[in-house]
């Protein structure tokens, strides 16, 4: 085990680039998941829409699909000739596949369900009479949401974010399918590890170490949020 070269390896540009890109992609994905995930979770928890079961299944689908299938689906949707990609390209000149933005989209796609599941169950666990009592006191819906509902589900939001961030950080299949493996642009840590394994196995080990440390340093503080400690 060539531990002696570890510090050199960790300092190399390729690894640093992959590390920074991974952080950027995973945190961007977490932000997007947070912004869109809360309304989706709220809708799933509170609406009586008749196709709710189907909708919930669709939202959870990325959790059970092999990521490569998700990447393929994204490629068909957002590729240059895809029905959404064509539209994005024509109207906004925006191309997702094989760009950093594409990596973020892939990460959002696979990590969203983790957040939605956590937050939806938190919404469900609130006794609706609590919000109704606030209504009878004359409070506006916004005030009730911000002052009564949100503080109650806050721990689940944090836990859900940590989980989905971790999932985004580890994302591999959908990213390599949809965004490719370009150093500095779409080559996140897992992709760099995959590549390094073919050429420089010790670099793969070093990168794996970086991933483990990064993940633990984020997950440990939030561990109690989803696994209540005794």
């Amino acid at each position, binding site marked *: 085990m060539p531990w002696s070269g570890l510090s050199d390896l960790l300092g190399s540009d390729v690894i640093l680039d992959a590390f920074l890109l991974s952080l950027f992609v995973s945190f961007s994905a977490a932000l997007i998941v947070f912004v869109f995930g809360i309304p989706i979770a709220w809708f799933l928890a509170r609406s009586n829409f008749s196709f709710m079961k189907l909708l919930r299944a669709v939202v959870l689908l990325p959790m059970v699909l092999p990521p490569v299938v998700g990447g393929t689906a994204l490629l068909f949707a957002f590729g240059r000739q895809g029905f959404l990609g064509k539209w994005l390209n024509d109207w906004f000149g925006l191309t997702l596949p094989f760009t950093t933005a594409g990596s973020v989209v892939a990460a959002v796609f696979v990590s969203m369900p983790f957040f939605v599941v956590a937050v939806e169950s938190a919404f469900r666990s609130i*006794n609706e*009479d*609590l919000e*109704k*009592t*606030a*209504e*009878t*006191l*004359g*409070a*506006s819906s916004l*005030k009730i949401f911000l*002052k*009564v509902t949100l*503080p*109650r589900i806050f721990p689940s939001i944090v836990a859900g974010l940590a989980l989905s961030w971790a999932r985004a950080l580890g994302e591999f299949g959908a990213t390599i399918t949809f965004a490719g493996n370009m150093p500095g642009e779409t080559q996140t840590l897992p992709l760099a590890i995959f590549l390094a394994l073919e050429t420089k196995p010790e670099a793969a080990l070093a990168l794996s170490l970086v991933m483990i440390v990064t993940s633990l340093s984020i997950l440990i503080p939030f561990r109690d949020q989803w696994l209540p400690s005794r």
Partner: protein
Amino acid sequence: MLELNGSLDLEHFTLKIKLEIDKNETVSLLGPNGSGKSTLLRLICGLEKLTTGSLRINTNIVDSENTFLHSRFRNVGWVPQNQMLFDHLTVKQNIEFSPNSSSEEVSELIELFDLEHVQDKKAGNCSGGESQRVAIARAIASKPQILLLDEPSTGLDEKSKQIIHRYLKTQKGVATLLITHDPLEAASLSERLIILEKGVITQSGTADELRNSPATPYSASLVGLNFVPAIANGLVAETSKGVELILSESIQGPVNIVIPPKSIALYKEKPIGSPRNVLMAKILEINHVGENVRINLDGQLDFMAEITNNAFEVLNLHKGDEVWAAFKATELIATPV
């Protein structure tokens, strides 16, 4: 102030209510569990919608076939049975939650409900009695026209109960509807008692009226009386189980018969002599209440007898014993239905 005449279909029965409450009036709502009391409160504060009929608060119709005013705009203070405090906020923040609250009134209420020492405590850490006081203060701070209290003093410590009772006795200008299981509390806090059974008001009146002529077995049990519906034919009334009771006055048709437990005498052997009602029964339960002993009997009629401790000792009664229960015709109260 409040005028309700309408119905709401529930799972097992229909809540069918005609009720008026004046400004300044406190009305107590009593009834067995599952009779629709809490649902009635939810209906008034706008968490349920009437199936038929209408609800008027002040001069506005707030619920009818084609109107429904959201609970936010009804100005009704609702204190649900489990308080529903905002646990993550402090006591003070809970009380000032309503946009209608004013800071002077909030401080007044904190003082009135003796919450100064806990005002900065998280509501989630309050005791049961504190929580109930916070919940009531919070509802009052929203300046309601109608106050709805769902069992406000059930299971509370004596001090909290007193504080709440003192407030309810002195408050002015708020129509109050109070659910309780305690007829004494109802009598001390309200002019009018309403009995709700299976969604229907079976009796409405003062505590005295309830005591003197309970309309149903439930009303009678509330005031500690035995109640037997029967069909009278002259001086004899026959119950649904075929038991014949001797009356002191001749009546025809359906009657409600009330038998005060203290008028029932118990014997180990069948008593002979004067024209009395004599029934055989088995002792189900024995409860000591101060100077007296209440004995629940099961036999041709289910009823309760109350005898003195002395008599109880002389008779040497035990649970499961068979006894003869006797009472004079003049002690029955038979009211034609």
